[in-house]
């Protein structure tokens, strides 16, 4: 356990994020069910968000919101980088849009073939 205690908090977030990216890629490449592939994409998204957030972390920093806990005078030394947080906010919303479109494609494909297994869609195979 001392190994974990020595680890920096952003390192843990970074490693979990990278692990999620790998899991997502594995899911996208190996699963035959379309819904499972979409879940793989969501995992990949989440992993990338975690990596981005961990890169923006500053040792001992807190949320970039100025209030009683973070007085204006020492703001630059007390907060984490606001730019990656803003980027992740954008990325989450775009990921949601992409997932919605993928799911509606899945609905269309199910309507066409009555199945969600990708092997049934032979015309898109090369």
């Amino acid at each position, binding site marked *: 356990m001392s190994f974990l205690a020595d680890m920096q908090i952003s390192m843990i977030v970074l490693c979990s994020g990278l692990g999620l990216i790998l899991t997502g890629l594995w899911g996208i490449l190996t699963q035959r069910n379309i819904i499972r592939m979409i879940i793989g994409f969501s995992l990949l998204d989440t992993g990338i968000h975690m990596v981005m957030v961990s890169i923006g972390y*500053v*040792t001992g920093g807190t949320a970039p*919101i100025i209030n009683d806990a973070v007085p204006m005078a020492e*703001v630059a030394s007390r*907060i984490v980088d606001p730019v990656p947080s803003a980027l992740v906010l954008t990325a989450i919303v775009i990921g949601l*849009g992409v997932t919605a479109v993928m799911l509606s494609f899945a609905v269309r494909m199910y309507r066409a073939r009555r199945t969600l297994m990708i092997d049934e869609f032979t015309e898109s195979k090369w």
Partner: protein
Amino acid sequence: MIKRLIIFLMLALVAMIFVHLAANYSENTSLSKLGRYYAEKGPQEIGAANLVTAVVVTYRGLDTLGEVTVLFISAAGVGLLLRRTRRKQDDEDLEQGDRAEETTGVHKPASEIVETATELLLPMVILFGIYVFLNGHLSPGGGFQGGAIIASGTMFLLLALPESHISRLMIALTESLSGFSYVVIGVLGVIMAGGFLDNRIMGLGAYGTLFSAGAIPLIYTLVGLKVGFELSAVLDRFRKDDTGPL
């Protein structure tokens, strides 16, 4: 077998890159140059206590406009893909599916407890969403988060009372009007202040109060309404008995 081997090899290579990245990672001990600029100049220039909001709505406002556009396009795409086509064969397919679902008993009306709780909680959920986007410049929150909470209220409604009717016309009107006003505010920034989506078209107000940070609460209200209604429309499209374009 070959396929599996290739996939395994690829993942192993990606994992190697990641291990390298993680091994050479060291935590930042100070802000980046850009982050420092935003932290030091943001409160005076923008007047928002939440610096992420300052970055999202003003410094990178154009990105956010693009983000809203992407969300709009994806909502439109979902609408297009899940539209009920008038072709006879599709209709027959759908009816077959509907009948299959009916016989398996998917549709069971919600109990009275669920219905009453929905009627009681739904206004509160929506009110909380409005609170979140109105306080986007002061606390963690903002237009996208508030919009998502409003859409979760819609989800709640659709789960508990699946037969309830949501007006497509109202959704389309609110969405287009708020999107249009967002762009108008952006253009007003060019005319009256420093540039596109500049929030200083209104007075900055007293720092840290609800009516401060110039046009940010207004922009976030529009974004919140747009996102909330857009996501509600997406959820509504995923219902089984989807009919007509509006």
